[in-house]
């Protein structure tokens, strides 16, 4: 029985050999204890990632640890996605008129986007977006790249107190431009607490990220001004 449970544990981690899946499906399907086991493993994951205490291993070899974890934030991103998904409200916004695709071109690309390669790219894009959003939320220095951008033409000024955010009336946000498009074809936005995160694709193949107290209308207006 423990052998089966160990396989369930490995399957939960995505570490089971695919040739063993069929056997496990049959066993789990008829055995409520095994179903419960799998569910509990997931529950433990929720508990670990929602718990107030951040767990850290203590006795790993420090040198190898340092090397392997040198890019730890990025590698954590996908596991951390669970946490971000618990706190963010996912929404899509698609009335950015210049990004509308006509039916013909949609049909033309539909076969292309169904290819395995395209799906992999799309999947990776989703993961990059998740990582990006996590950095926006968790890394205070990540959005500090806006000082060179002038938004006075749309009425926003640099906030003199911090030098990195833009303000106009009650609206206050930080901005960052990516040199990659994340595969975005339309505006995506998320609500986090009382702040918003907007990812707006630009015509030049870049993506602008806006984070703070700002409306969708202002976000799009700013993006259009950056395109000019």
């Amino acid at each position, binding site marked *: 029985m423990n052998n089966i449970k160990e396989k369930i544990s490995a399957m939960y981690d995505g570490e*089971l050999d695919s040739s063993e899946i069929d056997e496990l499906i049959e066993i789990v399907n008829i055995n409520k204890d095994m179903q419960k086991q799998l569910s509990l493993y997931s*529950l433990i994951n929720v508990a670990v990632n929602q718990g107030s205490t951040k*767990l850290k291993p203590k006795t790993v070899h420090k040198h190898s640890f340092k090397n392997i974890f040198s890019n730890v934030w990025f590698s954590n991103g996908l596991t951390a996605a669970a946490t971000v998904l618990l706190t963010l409200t996912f929404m899509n916004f698609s009335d950015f008129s210049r990004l509308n695709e006509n039916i013909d071109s949609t049909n033309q690309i539909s076969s292309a986007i169904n290819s395995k390669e395209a799906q992999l790219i799309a999947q990776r894009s989703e993961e990059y977006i998740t990582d990006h959003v996590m950095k926006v939320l968790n890394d205070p220095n990540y959005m500090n790249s806006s000082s060179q951008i002038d938004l006075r033409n749309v009425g926003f000024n640099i906030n003199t107190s911090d030098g990195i955010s833009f303000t106009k009336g009650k609206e206050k946000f930080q901005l960052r431009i990516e040199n990659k498009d994340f595969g975005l074809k339309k505006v995506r936005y998320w609500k986090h607490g009382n702040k918003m995160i907007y990812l707006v694709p630009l015509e030049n193949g870049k993506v602008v990220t806006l984070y703070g107290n700002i409306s969708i209308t202002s976000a799009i207006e700013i993006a259009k001004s950056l395109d000019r």
Partner: protein
Amino acid sequence: MKENSHDIDSELIKKAKKGNHGAFNILMNKYYPRVYASIFSFIKSKEDSEDLSQQTFIKVWQQLHTFRGDSAFFTWVYRIAINLAKNFVTSSGFKKQKINTSIEDAEIDISSFDDIESAVIHNESLKEINNFIDSLPESLKTAFVLRESEGKSYEDIAAITETPIGTVRSRIFRARELIVEFIEKEITNNE
């Protein structure tokens, strides 16, 4: 979530799309607690979160053929869950909605979920579980935390801890077993 996990999920989804209820059951058992926790963070009601979690998986089953795999499976499931939760919040002043699909018809054994999810997610148990994990034998704790908190693959953990992959797999399993035992003994019995 790492590549391997996507592969296994993809395999399960492919089988579920072909009508393999067992494969779907595994996906549901794997993701139900996370869906429940997501909805609960939005709705703040245990009973309604349970209803909506069940509705989510019924909808997932009904719409599975439309899942193209261009996002992680949980991301897709999560969107369904949150849309249901948002509709629930905005519809008729939080009036209780009934599941309009027969669970039996769908052949999804939702009844197999008992109150254990609620017990763990709703009270101080999160802290207790974390304290318990902290007290695990160091070798088990290290493997488990590297996997669950840091998202490391078994291969990476084996390299970090300089142990064979089979030992890593076994340690993570043993850690989980001890935690499950703790949850069942110390937490659900105290509810």
